[in-house]
């Protein structure tokens, strides 16, 4: 019973309440509370690192639904990452969110999201896990809803998509609990077959949707436009990836024993590969800084799913390493986007350009993070991608090809983004742009430095944070730190990156600007039509679902009308017709009354005589 485990949940929770409790007019209060709470939380979870703690409280008193928390290597790693991001993004928001509306709500959501994420990661009971994950929907909804006047629609979209997938997760969790007879996560060990297979699929849907995988992704690009930017860096880029992939890894490693080459593994890898390719293709053609990043946030989760889905140690290690790397460089990229938005007032790439000279530190952080996401050695993204490639190649060449193709387009789109935003000719309106405030720069610099650190010195995260997640037996003595084992893969990666560079030069040369560098792909025969439809949301599962729901409600409305007609018209007229006919039989004459009575008597007497003989 280590009640200290409650503090990572309680500290941000109480912090959020304090933020809301104090009047708006008290200055610096909410900011200082946020920094204090996230800082205390970070210090707390760091001090708990690599301990094995367990907290248990009989919660509802029935079933085996108890409030149990468990801290071990994996969960402590995730809560540290979450705490660090919360602290840095809190710091960043001090400057970014200045002079905006709903500030108290924003900071409260920030703190509560942290509390709920900590709770979800520490939970050792499926019901407790669901409780925290569901509650996280509320803060996400709030975050998006306070973004702008029109963001309510996007908030509802996110809420519905996540709500539906959480129902899948819930159903899967209940089936898993039913099959294993317990809801305590550390005691559930199932196989992926029969009902267990259904539970696996359902829980997997919940996990990958949390991570933002296709086809549950479509709210993220919309939120990129509508929600406050720190939300994007915080929730979809960092916390949800951490939670989703943590959950996926728990499902694949603990709750179920995923076997390499099994149908479940193939399914996961297919989802991963498709997500990588489709999302990166959409990212390629975006003309907005934040929207482009948001598609990459979807695309990159494909690598993680692909890696974990291989069920091979190298793939899982790669996927998890990619998870933490992605959280770092994607947050950093969103933060640079926020800096650009704050300083220039726009994220529309056609109105940007040439500001690299004005904002050199932002540009530097961008270059490091963009190189990391493209997988340029020796940054962290390179190493984690190599591990994922290794696992994918061992599972099937097709997955490897998809992953490598994804890399090519990732690199191409970031060359385009960097070129269009920071290089080229500066426009008139951006002449006066200045570097962002230090409060915003510090988080970017810290995270960018982390990207370099995790790349150059990759044995630090791999050996101390990630490898211990797998058991010694699973690792089978393999080592993953250091330079990639297969130099052939490195060569292919380098060739692909150089190819992307050449492609960029070709594009710039033929189209004349960085913004249009990929237009030869965008308007390629065959692709153009697909792109046009995708931009019009023909492929958005949410919109398709809405349309189907519309048809369904029309059909049910028709059925309802028919039922109404039966009740209101058919039944009534039949009854009245029968009533009139029955009245005609009886007019009230003595003779007819008497003869009816005598007729009845005769029938009864006849019936009795028949039964007498029989």
């Amino acid at each position, binding site marked *: 019973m280590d009640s200290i485990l409650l503090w990572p949940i309680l500290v941000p929770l109480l912090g959020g309440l304090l933020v809301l409790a104090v009047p708006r007019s008290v200055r610096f209060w909410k900011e200082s509370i946020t920094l204090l709470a996230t800082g205390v939380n970070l210090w707390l979870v760091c001090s708990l690192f690599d301990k094995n703690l367990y907290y248990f409280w009989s919660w509802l008193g029935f079933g085996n639904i108890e409030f149990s928390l468990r801290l071990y290597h994996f969960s402590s790693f995730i809560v540290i990452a979450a705490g660090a991001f919360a602290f840095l993004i809190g710091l960043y928001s001090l400057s970014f969110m200045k002079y905006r509306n709903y500030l108290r709500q924003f900071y409260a959501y920030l703190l509560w999201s942290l509390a709920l994420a900590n709770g979800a990661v520490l939970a050792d009971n499926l019901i407790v896990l669901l409780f925290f994950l569901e509650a996280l929907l509320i803060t996400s909804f709030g975050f998006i809803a306070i973004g702008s006047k029109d963001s309510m629609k996007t908030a509802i979209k996110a809420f519905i998509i996540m709500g539906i997938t959480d129902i899948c997760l819930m159903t899967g969790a209940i089936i898993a609990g039913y099959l294993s007879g317990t809801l305590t996560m550390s005691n559930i060990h199932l196989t992926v077959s029969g009902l267990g297979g259904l539970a696996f699929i359902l829980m997997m849907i919940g996990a990958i949707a949390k991570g933002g995988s296709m086809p549950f992704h479509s709210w993220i690009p919309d939120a990129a436009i509508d929600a406050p930017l720190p939300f994007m860096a915080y929730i979809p880029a960092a916390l949800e990836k951490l939670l989703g992939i943590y959950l996926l890894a728990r499902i694949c490693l603990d709750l179920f024993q995923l076997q390499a080459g099994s149908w479940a593994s193939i399914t996961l890898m297919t989802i991963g590969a498709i997500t990588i390719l489709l999302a990166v293709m959409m990212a390629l053609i975006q003309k907005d800084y934040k929207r482009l990043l948001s598609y990459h946030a979807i695309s990159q989760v494909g690598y993680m799913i692909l890696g974990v889905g291989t069920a091979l140690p190298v793939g899982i290690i790669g996927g998890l390493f990619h998870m933490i790397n992605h959280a770092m460089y994607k947050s950093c990229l969103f933060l640079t986007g926020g800096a650009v938005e704050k300083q220039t007032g726009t994220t529309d790439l056609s109105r940007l350009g040439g500001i690299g000279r004005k904002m050199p530190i932002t540009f530097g952080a961008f270059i490091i993070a963009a190189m990391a996401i493209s997988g340029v050695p020796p940054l962290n993204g390179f190493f984690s991608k190599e591990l994922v490639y290794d696992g994918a190649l061992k599972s099937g060449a097709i997955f490897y090809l998809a992953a490598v193709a994804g890399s090519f387009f990732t690199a191409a789109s970031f060359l385009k983004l960097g070129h269009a935003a920071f290089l080229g000719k500066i426009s008139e309106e951006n002449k006066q742009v200045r570097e962002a405030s230090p409060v915003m720069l510090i988080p970017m610099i810290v995270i960018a430095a982390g990207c370099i650190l995790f790349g150059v010195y990759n044995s630090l995260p791999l050996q101390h944070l990630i490898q211990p997640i797998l058991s010694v037996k699973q690792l089978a003595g393999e080592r993953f730190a250091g330079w990639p084992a297969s130099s052939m893969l490195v060569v292919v990666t380098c060739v692909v990156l150089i190819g992307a560079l050449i492609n960029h030069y070709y594009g710039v040369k033929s189209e004349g600007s960085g913004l249009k560098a990929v237009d030869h792909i965008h308007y390629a025969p065959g692709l153009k039509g697909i792109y046009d439809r995708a931009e019009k949301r023909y492929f958005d599962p949410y919109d398709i679902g809405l349309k189907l729901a519309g048809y369904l409600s029309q059909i049910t409305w028709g059925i309802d009308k028919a039922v109404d007609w039966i009740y209101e018209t058919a039944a009534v007229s039949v*009854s*009245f017709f*029968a*009533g*009139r006919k*029955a*009245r005609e039989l*009886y007019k*009230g004459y*003595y003779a*007819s*009354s*008497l003869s*009816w*009575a*005598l*007729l*009845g*008597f005769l029938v*009864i*007497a006849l*019936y*009795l*005589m028949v*039964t*007498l003989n029989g």
Partner: protein
Amino acid sequence: MFSLLIFVPLFIVMLINMPFGGIRKSAYILAFLLALAQIVFTLLAFFTPLSPLSSGRQDILGNFFNFRIGVDNLTLVLLFCIGLTLLVTLLTGREVVVDQRQRFNFVNLLVIAMAGLNGIVLAQDIFTMYVFLEIAAVASYILISFQKGILALEAAFKYLILSAAASVLMLSAIALLVLVSGDTSFAIISQALRDGSGGFPVKLALGLFVCGFAIKGGIIPFHGWLPDAYTEAPAPVSIFLAGIVTKTLGLYTLIRVVTVLFGQAAYISQILLVMGILSVVFGAWMALTQNDFKRMLAYSSISQVGYIILGLACGPGWGLAGAILHILNHTVFKSLLFVNSAAVETKTGTRNMDQLAGLSDRMPVTSFTSIIASLSAAGVPPLAGFWSKLLIIIGLWQAGFKLVAVIAVLASIITLGYLLSIQRRVFWGKLGSELLNVKEAKGGIMISAVLLAAIAIGVGLAFPFIPAAMLNSLSSLLGG
């Protein structure tokens, strides 16, 4: 003691007709106290343990006059209903029958009818039962027509004609029974029927009895007199007829003679089932198209009596218990509806529902109590009618008459349909200009409406607490 229930009313009739000065004026009070006393007496008797019917409780007066009476739970239920209906009839009659002379006649006839009804219920002898039945019936003919309206006279005459046919049938049946058993006492007849092989005379007697009682009870196709009589009788008399007279004359006798005395053979069940379902469905359908408030209630009575018959058809068990409870509940809610119709008729001067609308604002208590009664009649939980209908339908299902059970459930939708159409046409909607000055009914009508509504709700809410033993004693009548 129970013979007092017959003799005290007779004594009071003699007393109030004595040529003393003031005694006439106290007739109403005496009758009222009599009804009250009967209610209290039966309620007290409910809570004292009873010996079974077969041992027959006889008392000194009964021996002296040489007729046999007996009491069981069924008898007590009926006695309670008689007292209650009489009370409500007197309360309503005070508002409706204004003329002193007419009121005196009205009270006289009611007390005579009461003696007859009590006699039917208590009799343990087939001929005694017949005699009391005729007493009650004759009082009823006159009650229908004592105000000498032309339509009421016609209705009473129609009732008389059909009742004459019923008398012939019943007397013939009694003669046949005496032929078979040599005595008129229930115990001896029952013994003889059990010993003998039956044969044609017994079956003929059975058929004659069924038809005779069915005429008295107004069961389709023997119902010809009933709609006219209920409609044209003065308002309080309608309450009395619908509330208790047809129940006792037709249904109680049917239970006592046909199902208890003759025993529940399969062919009796078949006959009762057919008559019951005909009454339920056709009664409801015909009620649906009526424009006259009371006529709709009259057809509704036929339909509800059909449910009781269906309960009887199930034989011993939940069905029979439900049938007996439905007698009680029907007394309550149908009397209440007739009280409401009396209120509407006295205050607006019409019973034609096409001329009425929007009275709920002017007559809130009447409107509310009629909703309670309608819902109870349609069998909406938690009102009293729900439980008895539920028992009947469970009984039908258990006895294997599943199709009939389904039809019975569906028919209660029609029941709700026409009863709600009363609400819609009379109480809801826009108040007509000629009805602007209508006021809520007062005094006796109001008291009886509230009293009956309270019983309908109270019995419904208290039903789950009624001891199972009481239901069992109701349902095991036929076990012997």
